[in-house]
Structure formats: structure tokens, C-alpha cells
């Protein structure tokens, strides 16, 4: 149905966007969960530093994040060069790179939602699990994660919706390559800068808006459903 309503070009832009945002969420979710868990723990040395790292993308200009990624993961950067030589993987100017830039930008949102969920869990339940012989690692998998599930889901969906709109970091690190890294906001920007493509920009803007609203509604719905399952 969606396909019938869109032009071939629009469909490709939308699927590129969904693919990049999806990969960004899948790859950053485990890291975000670990960060959130560590930040929700009682204070420990290095926690403030960890907190700063997790929130840095929120306050840095997206272009700067893209530039830093380019310095590190560009073909001549220390990490990028190593990846290219060892695994033959190139991130700069590819969809994978766009996903990395999107993941970094959406990371603070994800960590925040998941962390709140960890913090809202009744600590007494972990004591109850401990006296039933569950080790700390076991308690994380059997209790902390399942109980924080609503927050994890919501964090993932919000990050996905935000990822659909990421512009600065993506265009700096992965450029604007049609069919590869051209996501919705990049395509809107390109259309606005091309004379006579205003209607294209408008249609893409509507698609963006619908996708963003759907994402937020889905996050809300998932959280509501998961909470009802836990609390009744």
C-alpha cells in the first residue's frame, strides 16, 4: 500500500532511511543497555566520565560529530584505516557509515530511556533473587533486563524515529549518495537546493512527518503495553 502511494524515488529514499535507522538501533542497542545499566548503578569511580561520553552527542553540533567520525573512521583515520586493512570494511561514504553516525547521534536518547527504566526497578527484587542463588550476572539477565523491557523498547523506537531525521552527522561522515546514504532529510535538503523540486521536497517532508509520528506513537503504545503486562 505504501509502495502504491510513493514514487519509485520516494520509496528508495524511505527504504534507505529505514535501513540506516534500523541498523543504527540494532548495533547501538547492546552498547546503550550496558551504558544505561552502568549509569543506573550506585556511584562508582568513572561514572561521571561515562555519563559525559553518553550525553556528548546531545550537546555537540551534529556536523562536529560527523567530522570527528571522519577523523577516526575515515579511510585515512586510525580506526578507519585499520578496519579497511584488516576486514576490508569502509565506513565513510557508505550506508554502514551513515548508520554509525545515526547511532552515535541517537545514543543519548536511547541510554536515557533505558536508564530511567533500570532506575525505576524495585531494588528489593534483586535481593530476593540473590537469596534464591542468582549471581549478579544472572540477575541482570533474568530480572533487570526483562523488567526494564518497556524502557528498552521505547528507547529503541524513539532512537529509530530520531535516526530517521539525522542530518548533520550523516551528511558530513557519509555524504549524500543516492540509493546509499541519501536519507529523508538529506533528500529534502537536496530537493530544496534544486530549482523546481519544491513539490518533491514537500512530499518528502510529509513522509518524514508521518514516519516520525508513527514512531512516537509506537513507542508510547509499546511502553503502555509492556507496563500493563508488568503492573496490571
Amino acid at each position: 500500500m505504501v509502495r502504491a502511494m510513493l514514487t519509485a524515488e520516494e520509496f528508495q529514499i524511505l527504504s534507505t532511511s529505514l535501513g540506516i535507522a534500523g541498523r543504527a538501533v540494532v548495533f547501538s542497542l547492546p552498547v546503550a543497555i550496558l551504558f544505561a545499566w552502568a549509569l543506573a548503578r550506585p556511584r562508582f569511580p568513572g561514572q561521571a566520565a561515562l555519563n559525559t561520553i553518553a550525553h556528548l552527542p546531545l550537546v555537540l553540533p551534529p556536523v562536529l560529530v560527523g567530522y570527528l567520525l571522519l577523523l577516526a573512521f575515515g579511510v585515512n583515520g586510525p580506526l578507519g584505516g585499520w578496519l579497511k586493512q584488516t576486514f576490508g570494511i569502509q565506513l565513510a561514504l557508505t550506508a554502514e557509515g551513515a548508520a554509525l553516525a545515526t547511532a552515535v547521534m541517537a545514543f543519548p536518547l536511547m541510554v536515557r530511556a533505558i536508564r530511567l527504566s533500570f532506575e525505576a526497578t524495585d531494588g528489593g527484587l534483586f535481593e530476593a533473587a540473590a537469596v534464591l542463588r542468582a549471581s549478579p550476572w544472572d540477575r541482570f539477565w533474568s530480572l533487570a533486563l526483562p523488567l526494564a523491557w518497556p524502557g528498552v523498547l521505547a528507547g529503541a523506537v524513539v532512537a529509530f524515529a530520531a535516526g530517521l531525521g539525522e542530518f548533520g552527522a550523516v551528511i558530513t561522515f557519509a555524504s549524500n549518495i543516492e540509493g546509499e546514504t541519501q536519507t529523508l532529510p538529506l533528500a529534502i535538503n537536496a530537493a530544496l537546493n534544486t530549482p523546481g523540486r519544491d513539490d518533491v521536497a514537500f512530499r518528502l517532508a510529509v513522509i518524514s512527518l508521518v514516519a516520525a509520528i508513527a514512531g512516537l506513537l509506537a513507542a508510547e503504545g509499546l511502553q503502555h503495553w509492556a507496563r500493563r503486562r508488568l503492573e496490571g
Partner: protein
Amino acid sequence: MSLDLRGAIVRRGGFRLSAELSVPSEGITVVFGPSGSGKSMLLSAIAGLHRLTAGSLAFNGRVLEDVAGQQRTPAHERAIGLVFQDARLFPHLSVRGNLHYAEHRRPAARNAPITLEISRLLEFEELLDRPVKNLSGGERSRVALARAIVSAPELLLLDEPFAALDGRRRRDFANFLKAYSRDQGVPMIVVTHLIDEAAELANHIVAMRAGRVICSGRPADVMTRPEFADLLAPRDRGAWVQGAAGFASGDGVWVRADSVLLASAEPRGISARNVWPGTVSGIVREPDGAILVSLATAKGYILSRITLEALADLRLAEGAHAWAIVKAHAL
């Protein structure tokens, strides 16, 4: 074989618990005291949920925690079960899921009932597939106890297990604990502030006040001490009586002052099975206005709480003869 706390100190939010204690690792030990005396904290320390800041803790000769020796066994390796007052069932699991959680984590060699057996024993088989959020307070208590038993602990701690139960269920629950401890050889430590439950369950009793153990030992010894009487609210006063009719235990029974009637002449044609003659040895006016009469009898001292009017009618005075009457049912 015993549980030993030596110079143990636990600090928690301004509260300081200090315990010098040795309790036998068999039968049921009751920790009794008014609220705020540190009973729950003692259980948490034994289970390994609160750290000792000084002293040591050993169970059956195995050192679980020794601050000076920098040794500590974490809670999940202690094989000590704890039933929390607020049950703490896992909300994302069904009743069966909660019991399986314990069953899957116990060592294969430990012999204890599995999920289905315990749910039959405690009469909640029909609840197994319910989400725990749909349980009543009493049901939660039973499931929490079952979960702890299924984990096959070597020592079971229970924090106010009767709090959410009504009269009949209390009695069933107490009988179950006694039978289970005896038949399975699992020592238990039960925290309660209810004198009747304490007296009914205890093979050994530990009395606490303001973060300290004030006395411990056999109920017959501890519950007759003046410092134990000081822990009791006026309505909870009573006496330890040996050889009452209608009570099986040879060790005696706690008789509440509230359930003892007094007569100034020998009662005849009366249904009560326990009628004991004695001499009035003390008359005290309680802060709440009631009169506490102590009677020296062949069974030991018996206390009776009566009103000022009743005292005047009976014309009781120290040295007077009187008869104490107790229904066997009240024991």
C-alpha cells in the same frame, strides 16, 4: 552446629545493629522485639544483603563473613533463604514462573519439594498459572514461602511471615513451618512482633530491643525474664506455664494475661480445663488503667489482666488466695 555472630555490627542509615549471638541450627528460632529493634536488619545481615562493618558470621562452622579477615561469601552463595515481609514476587513471571526461578537455580543434590509438590502442600495449586499481580496478600505470602522452600536453603529466614494472614491461615502457616522444619531438618529463624506466634513457634528465642540482643535461649527461660516482659505491650503480657491441660508440649505454654480469669473462691461446675489455685503475689496498675495481678501457683507464676472494678469486687490483696481459670482453647 549453630549460627554464630561474634561482635557483629551493621550500620544502615543512622541505625546501628550490634549482635553477639549463637543460635542452634535446628528447629525454629524466633527473633522477637518491638518494631524498630533491628530484627529485619539482622536477617538481612545473615542472608548477606547487608554487610557487616565489624565482627564475623559463621554457619555450622563455615565462616560466611569475617570483617577482620576480609572474607565474605556473597548472598547468592550462602544457601540461606529469606522470605521477605513484602513477598517480593517477580512481577514479570507467573506464580509457576516464580517457583521455577528458584527450582532452576538450586543445586541438583539438595532434597526439597519441587514446584508442584509445594503448591499442593501449601494449597495453591490452582494459582500456579496466575500472574502474581492478581494474588491477595495471603496468597503472596504462601507463594513467597513456597519459592524459598523450593530453592532448598540450608537455613531459612522468615521476616514477619504472618503479617498478611488472618487467624485460621496464621495457625495453618505456623503448623506448616513447625512440621516442615522438623521433618526436613531445615533450621528456621522467624522474625515476629506477635507474642502468640513467637510462643507457639519457638524452640529458641532471641529478644531484641534498639539494635541489641537483650537475651536469648529456651522460651521457658527467656520469656519468664523481667527484661523480656519489658518488651511487651500491656495487652501482650503473659506468663510461661508448665503442664497446662489441652496442650501437648512438655516444655510449657505462653498464657496471655488477657485470657486468664480470676476467682476469689474455688470455682465449681466449670467447663474450663485449667483451674489453678494460688496466692496473689503482686498487684500492679498498668499505664492503660488495667490491673495486672500475679498469682503464685504450683505451675509457676501466672498473670491476669482485670479491671479496677473486678479487683474491688473480688477484694483481692497481696497474700490472698485466688484461682486462675484458663480455657484450653486460649492456649
